[in-house]
C-alpha cells in the first residue's frame, strides 16, 4: 500500500510550493490548494466498507538502528479520522478563501494548513509510535503557526505559545512513554508491541507508561486541567478553529487513547483515569461555556466539554462504548465544524462575536440562522439529529462500565448528565437567543447571508447532521462499526438507533434536556449563580504563575552569582577544585602513600628558595607598583638561578631572557596605567582572600607531594637520553626534544607567540571608539530606529570593500 504512504506525504511535498503559487495565482490559490484534500478525501473514501479491524499497511525502513521506520497502517479507526481530516479539510480550505480578507497572506496560511493536514494524516496512520510522535509534534507546530496567524495581535501570540507549550509538554509524555514501551516491549511498532502485551501489563513501568501517554492525550484533547490552551487558541482565524480546534487536532488525543487501548487498556488504572478526567472535563467545559459571552469562546469550552464526553468511550473497551465514541467523533465534527464556520460568518457579517450584542439574526440572515439552530440543537442531543443518536449510545455505554457499575461510574454518569444539561443551555443560546428576539446586529447595519461558496461547508455539514440523525444506518457499518472494530482490534457489530428507545439512556437525555430548558429560561439567575462559584484554583493562574515564577527565579539566579567580578569567578573555580579533589580523594578511599624521595639541598639552593618565597609574598603584599615589579623580577631571576642549580641550563637561560623582556614590557605598559591606590578591603574580605590563596597554595603543594610520593612508573625520558644523539643528531637533549621528538609542541608554541604579537599589534592599533563602531554591544544606550547616527553607521556597514 505505497499509495497510503504517498497520501500522507503528498501535503508535505506540495506545501512548500504554496507561497510561490500564491504569488502567481493570488486569491484563487485556495481553490487550487483544495484539490489536495479533495483528492485525498476521494482516495480515502475508496476504503469505505473495505476496512475494519484488519489494517492495510505499508512499511519502509528509515532508521532501523533506532527502531523507527516509516510504517503505516490504516484500519477502520484511522479511516474515520482520515476522512474527517480530508473531508473537513476540503470544506475549510474553500471556506477560508472567502473568510480571509484580500490582504491576508494566504500563501503562508495554506502552507501551514497543508503541513498540518499531512501531519495529522500521519498521526492517524502511523504504526510506529515514534513516527506517530513525530507527526504529533508537527501538528503542534502547525497549530502554533496557525493560532499565531494574525500575529500582530497580542492575544494570538500569547494563545499560540500557550497551546504549543501545553501540547508539546504532552508530546514529551508520549515520547517518554514510547521509549519506556520500547524498554519493556522491545519495539516501537504497535503491531509488534501487541504481541508483547502481557509483558507490558506486567511491567513495573506500566503505570508510568500509561500516565505519560495519557498526559499526551489529555493535553492534546484539552482535558482538564490542560484545557486552558483551547480557548486561547480561538485567537486563530475561524476556519482554523473549525478545522484544528474542533474537528481534527483536538481529537488526536482521543485517537491516541483509542489506538493504545488494546495494548494498554483493559485495566482499572486506564479506565478510571480516563473516565474521571473525562467526566470532570465534561462538567467543567460546559460550566465554563455558559459563562462566556464570546461566541467562539463558548464554542471552545463546549468543545472541551464534548471531548471529555468522547474520551472515556475509548477507555472502556466495551463494544457499545467503542461504537458510541466512533459515532460521536463524526457527529461532533459535523455539528461543531458547522457551528464554527457559522460563527465565523456571523462575525464576518456583524463584526462581533459578543452574544450580548447579537439577536434576531433570523430576520437578517435566515440561512445562517437556520443552519446554526440545527447544528446547535444537534449538539444538545435533540431528536432527530445526529447528536441525539450518539449521545444515547454514550449514556448507554456509561451505564455499562467494563468493571461493573460502582459509585465512581455512577458519579461519572451524574457529571455527564449535569454537563449535558448545561450543554443544552448554551446550545439554546446559540439556537435561540441570537437568532430570535430584538434585532441586534453588532456593528453592522444590514448583515446578510454570505455568498454560496462560504455557505458550502456549513450546508454540507448540517446536511450530514440531519442525514445521520434521520438515517444513521448509512454510516453504521462502513464508518461506525469499522472504526470501532479498528479501535478494538476485533470486529464489532453494534447498532445505532434513530428512534428513541425507552430506557435509562433516554431518561438521562430527557433529564438533561429538561434541566437545560429550565436553566435556559432562568439564564440570568443561572449565570449569576455560576459567577458566585469561582473555582479557587484556576488552571490558567497555575500556568501564568509557573511562567512568572521561572522568570523571577531566572533573574534571581543570574543576579546572585553572575556578579561580573573576576574575583568571584576565580573563587568559584578554586572552590570547585577544592571540593572536587576532596570528593575524589574521599571517594577513592585508598590511603595516601607518603614515601618521599628527596634529593639533598645545598645552602645556596636554600637561600635561593628563601628569596623566591620572600619575593612572592612581597609581590602580593606591595602596594607600590614599582616595588612590586622589582619584587616580581627578583622572583624571576631567582627562579632562573634555581634552574641553574637544578641542572637545567636551557631553562635558566630562557627564563632569564623572558624575565628581562617581560619586565621591560611591564614597565612600558605601566606607563599607561594609573598608580595602585590604597585598597579599602574589609578585614573579612581580606581574610577570605588570604584563606582562599593559602588553600590554593597548600593544594598545589599537596599535589606536588603526592606526585613525588607516587612515582608509579619509570619515566619515558630514558629514551630521549639514549636516542638524542643517534636519532636527533644533537647532544643537548632538551633542544633535541624541542625541535625533534616533540617538534609539534614547539610548532604550536611559536604559533602562540606569533598570534600574541598579532594580537598585541591589533589591540593597540585598532581602536574602534575613535572612528565609531561597526557593531555595537548590546548594552549601549538604545538608539532610536530613525536616529541619523545609526543610519550613518548602516551606510558605512553597507559598503563592502
Amino acid at each position, binding site marked *: 500500500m505505497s499509495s497510503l504512504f504517498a497520501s500522507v506525504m503528498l501535503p508535505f511535498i506540495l506545501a512548500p510550493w504554496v507561497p510561490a503559487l500564491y504569488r502567481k495565482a493570488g486569491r484563487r490559490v485556495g481553490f487550487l490548494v483544495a484539490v489536495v484534500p479533495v483528492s485525498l478525501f476521494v482516495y480515502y473514501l475508496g476504503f469505505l466498507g473495505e476496512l475494519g479491524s484488519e489494517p492495510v499497511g505499508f512499511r519502509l525502513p528509515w532508521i532501523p538502528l533506532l527502531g523507527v521506520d516509516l510504517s503505516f497502517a490504516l484500519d477502520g479507526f484511522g479511516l474515520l479520522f482520515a476522512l474527517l481530516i480530508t473531508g473537513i479539510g476540503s470544506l475549510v480550505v474553500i471556506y477560508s478563501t472567502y473568510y480571509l480578507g484580500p490582504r491576508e497572506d494566504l500563501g503562508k496560511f495554506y502552507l501551514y494548513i497543508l503541513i498540518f493536514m499531512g501531519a495529522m494524516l500521519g498521526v492517524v496512520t502511523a504504526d510506529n509510535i515514534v513516527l506517530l510522535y*513525530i507527526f504529533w509534534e508537527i501538528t503542534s507546530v502547525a497549530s502554533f503557526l496557525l493560532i499565531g496567524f494574525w500575529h500582530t495581535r497580542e492575544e494570538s501570540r500569547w494563545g499560540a505559545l500557550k497551546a504549543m507549550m501545553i501540547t508539546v509538554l504532552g508530546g514529551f509524555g508520549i515520547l517518554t512513554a514510547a521509549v519506556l514501551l520500547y524498554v519493556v516491549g522491545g519495539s516501537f511498532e504497535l503491531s509488534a508491541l501487541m504481541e508483547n502485551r502481557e509483558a507490558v501489563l506486567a511491567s513495573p513501568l506500566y503505570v508510568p507508561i500509561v500516565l505519560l501517554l495519557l498526559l499526551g492525550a489529555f493535553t492534546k484533547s484539552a482535558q482538564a486541567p490542560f484545557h486552558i490552551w483551547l480557548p486561547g487558541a480561538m485567537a486563530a482565524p475561524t476556519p482554523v478553529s473549525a478545522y484544528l480546534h474542533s474537528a481534527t487536532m483536538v481529537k488526536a488525543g482521543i485517537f491516541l487513547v483509542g489506538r493504545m487501548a488494546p495494548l494498554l487498556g483493559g485495566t482499572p488504572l486506564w479506565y478510571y483515569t480516563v473516565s474521571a478526567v473525562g467526566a470532570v472535563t465534561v462538567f467543567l467545559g460546559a460550566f465554563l461555556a455558559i459563562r462566556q459571552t464570546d461566541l467562539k469562546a463558548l464554542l471552545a469550552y463546549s468543545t472541551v466539554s464534548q471531548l471529555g464526553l468522547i474520551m472515556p468511550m475509548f477507555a472502556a473497551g466495551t463494544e457499545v462504548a467503542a461504537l458510541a465514541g466512533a459515532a460521536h467523533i463524526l457527529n461532533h465534527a459535523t455539528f461543531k465544524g458547522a457551528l464554527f464556520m457559522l460563527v465565523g460568518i456571523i462575525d464576518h457579517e456583524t463584526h462581533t462575536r459578543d452574544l450580548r450584542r447579537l439577536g434576531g439574526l433570523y430576520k437578517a440572515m435566515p440561512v445562517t440562522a437556520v443552519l446554526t439552530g440545527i447544528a446547535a440543537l444537534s449538539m444538545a442531543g435533540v431528536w432527530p439529529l445526529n447528536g441525539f443518536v450518539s449521545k444515547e449510545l454514550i449514556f448507554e455505554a456509561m451505564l455499562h462500565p467494563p468493571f461493573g457499575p460502582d459509585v465512581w461510574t455512577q458519579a461519572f454518569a451524574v457529571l455527564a448528565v449535569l454537563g449535558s444539561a448545561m450543554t443544552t443551555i448554551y446550545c439554546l443560546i446559540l439556537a435561540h437567543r441570537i437568532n430570535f428576539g430584538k434585532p441586534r446586529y453588532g456593528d453592522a447595519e444590514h448583515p446578510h447571508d454570505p455568498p454560496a461558496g462560504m455557505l458550502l461547508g456549513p450546508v454540507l455539514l448540517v446536511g450530514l447532521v440531519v442525514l445521520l440523525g434521520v438515517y444513521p444506518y448509512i454510516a453504521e457499518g462502513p464508518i461506525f462499526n469499522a472504526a470501532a472494530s479498528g479501535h478494538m482490534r476485533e470486529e464489532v457489530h453494534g447498532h445505532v438507533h434513530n428512534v428513541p428507545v425507552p430506557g435509562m439512556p433516554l431518561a438521562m437525555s430527557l433529564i438533561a434536556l429538561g434541566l437545560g430548558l429550565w436553566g435556559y429560561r432562568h439564564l440570568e439567575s443561572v449565570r449569576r449563580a455560576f459567577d458566585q462559584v469561582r473555582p479557587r484554583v484556576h488552571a490558567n493562574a497555575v500556568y501564568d504563575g509557573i511562567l512568572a515564577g521561572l522568570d523571577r527565579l531566572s533573574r534571581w539566579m543570574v543576579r546572585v552569582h553572575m556578579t561580573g567580578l573576576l574575583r568571584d569567578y576565580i573563587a568559584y573555580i578554586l572552590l570547585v577544585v577544592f571540593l572536587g579533589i576532596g570528593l575524589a580523594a574521599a571517594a*577513592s578511599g585508598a590511603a595516601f602513600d607518603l614515601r618521599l624521595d628527596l634529593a639533598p639541598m645545598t645552602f645556596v639552593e636554600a637561600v635561593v628558595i628563601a628569596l623566591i618565597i620572600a619575593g612572592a609574598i612581597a609581590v602580593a603584599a606591595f602596594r607600590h607598583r614599582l616595588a612590586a615589579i622589582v619584587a616580581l623580577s627578583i622572583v624571576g631571576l631567582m627562579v632562573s638561578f634555581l634552574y641553574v642549580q637544578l641542572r637545567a641550563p636551557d631553562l635558566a637561560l630562557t627564563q632569564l631572557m623572558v624575565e628581562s623582556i617581560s619586565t621591560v614590557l611591564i614597565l612600558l605598559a605601566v606607563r599607561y596605567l594609573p598608580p595602585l591606590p590604597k585598597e579599602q578591603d574589609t578585614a573579612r574580605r581580606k581574610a577570605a582572600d588570604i584563606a582562599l590563596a593559602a588553600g590554593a597554595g597548600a593544594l598545589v603543594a599537596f599535589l606536588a607531594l603526592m606526585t613525588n610520593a607516587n612515582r608509579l612508573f619509570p619515566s619515558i625520558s630514558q629514551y630521549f637520553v639514549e636516542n638524542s644523539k643517534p636519532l636527533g643528531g644533537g647532544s643537548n637533549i632538551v633542544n633535541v626534544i624541542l625541535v625533534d621528538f616533540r617538534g609539534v609542541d614547539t610548532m604550536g608554541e611559536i604559533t602562540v607567540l606569533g598570534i600574541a604579537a598579532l594580537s598585541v599589534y591589533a589591540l593597540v592599533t585598532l581602536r574602534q571608539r575613535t572612528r565609531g563602531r*561597526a557593531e555595537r554591544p548590546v548594552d549601549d544606550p538604545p538608539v532610536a530606529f530613525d536616529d541619523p547616527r545609526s543610519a550613518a553607521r548602516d551606510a558605512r556597514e553597507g559598503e563592502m570593500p
Partner: protein
Amino acid sequence: MSPNGLALPVVLPMLTGIALILLPRRAEWQRRISAVSTAVGFLIAVALIRQVRAEGIQVLYVGDFPAPFGIVFVGDLLSTLLVALNMLVAAAVLWYAFLTMDPERERFFFYPLFQFLLMGINGAFLTGDIFNLFVWFEVLLIASYILLTLGGEPYQLQEGFKYVMINMLASTLFLVSVSVLYGTLGTLNMADMAVKIAEVKDSPVVAIASVLLLIVFGIKAAIFPLYFWLPRSYVAPPGAVTAFFGGVMTKVGVYAMVRVYTLLFGVDDGFTYTLLVWIAGLSMVVGILGTLAQMDFKRILTWHIISQIGYMVMGLAIFTPLALAGAIYYVAHIMVVKTALFLASGVTEKLTGTTNLKKMSGLLTTHPALGALFFVGGLSLAGVPPLSGFFGKFTLIQAGLAEGRYGIVATAVGVSLFTLFSMIKIFRTSFWGEVRHKAAADRAVDLRTYGALLGPLALLVAVSVGMGLGAQFTVGYVLESAHQLLQPSLYIQAVLGSGLGS
C-alpha cells in the same frame, strides 16, 4: 592517503594563516585564500573520515618517533568527525564573515587569526599526547582571546579580560594535572597512560587527576558550575565570531572530556557517574534558567550553550554505546544548529541594528525567508522532530531509560520544553508582531546583501534537516564511533601496537 593526512588539518590552516600574514592585506585575497583553504580542509577531513571507516584508527607518528616517546596524531571516528564539522562550520562562518566583517577587522588579521584558531582546534581533536593537547589548547585560546577582543570595543575588552584570566587559570590547572600525571605515570602519551592507569586503577592519584582534568575541560566546556565566564564574553564580539565560538569552542572541551573518560578513566565507578550526572542535570537546568529572563537574542543563545553541554555530559555519564552515541550526535547537531542560530541573530542585527528583542518585531512579514530559517533552526535546537536535535535527544532518552536513569531523563525532557519556550519567545517577539523596525529597503542592507547573508544560514539549516532525515546514516555513524570509544583497546592497540616495533 598515508597517515600523514592526519597532519593536514593542522598544517593547512597554519600555512594559510602564514600566507595571509605574509601577503599584502588586501581583503579580496584574504577572503579568497581562506575560503579555498577552508573548503579544501573540509574535503580533507571527509577523506580522513572515509579512511578511518575503511581502515580503522589512523595513527601518525610525528617525526617517525615511536609511541609513547614522540607525539602521535590519532584519527578515530570521533576526532575526524569533529574536524570535519569544525571545518564545515568554519566555512559557513567565513562565508558570513565575508559579507559582514568590517574592513578594519579584516585588515587587522581577522582571517589569519581565524585560520590559527582552526589549526588549534583541529590539533586538539587529533593529538594523542596530553601535553600536546595543552599546546593546542593554548593555540586556540590565544587565537580566541584576540578574536573576542579584536575591535577593541569597551565591552569586548572588559569581558575579554575576564575570559583570558579564567582560561589562564584553567591552563594552569591543566599544567598541574599534566605534571601530576607525568610525575606518577612517567608518560605523556594518552594511550600509554591508559595502559598504566589500568594497572593502578585504585590509586587516589588517578582519581584526583581525573577530577582535575574534568575541571580543566569543564571550564572550557562551560559545564555547571564552571560556566559563568561564558554568557557575557560570547555576546561581545561581532556576529561571525560569536557564531563560531557559540557553535564550536565549548565542544573542544566536551571532546576532551569524552576522550579522557573513555580512554583513560572510564565512568564505571559510582563516584564518577554521580558526579557527571549531577553536572549534566545542573548544567541543563541552570543554562535554561538563564535564558528565561533574557530579552536579548544573542544572550538567550549563549545561555543555551550551557544547557546543551549538559545533554552531552549526560551521554557521557550514562556511558553505554547508545548514550555516548547520543552525546556525540548532540555535539555534532549543536555545532551546526547553534552556529546557524547565531548567524540568524547576526542577520537580524544587521537588519534591525539591535539584538534586543523588545526593539524588533514583525520580521516574518518583512523577511519571511529569515523567519523560516530561524524557525526551523530553533525547532531543531529544541528537539522537535524530525530535525537533527530530535534524534540527539531521542537517543539520549532511549539510552537513559534503558539504564533506568529516570531522574536525568526527566530533567532532559523538561529542559527541552523550555528550550522550545525560549526559541518561541524569540520568534514571537521579533519575527511576529507589527513591523516596528525599518524595512530592509530603507536600510543600507539591500536585498542582495540580505539574500547573500542567508546563504551560510541556509547551508547549516539544510545540514541540520539532512542530519535528521538521514538519521539512519548519522546515528549509525555516531553509534559506530561510540563503540570505538568504548573499546579503548582499539585506540591503544593502534597507537602502541605497531608503534613499539618501529
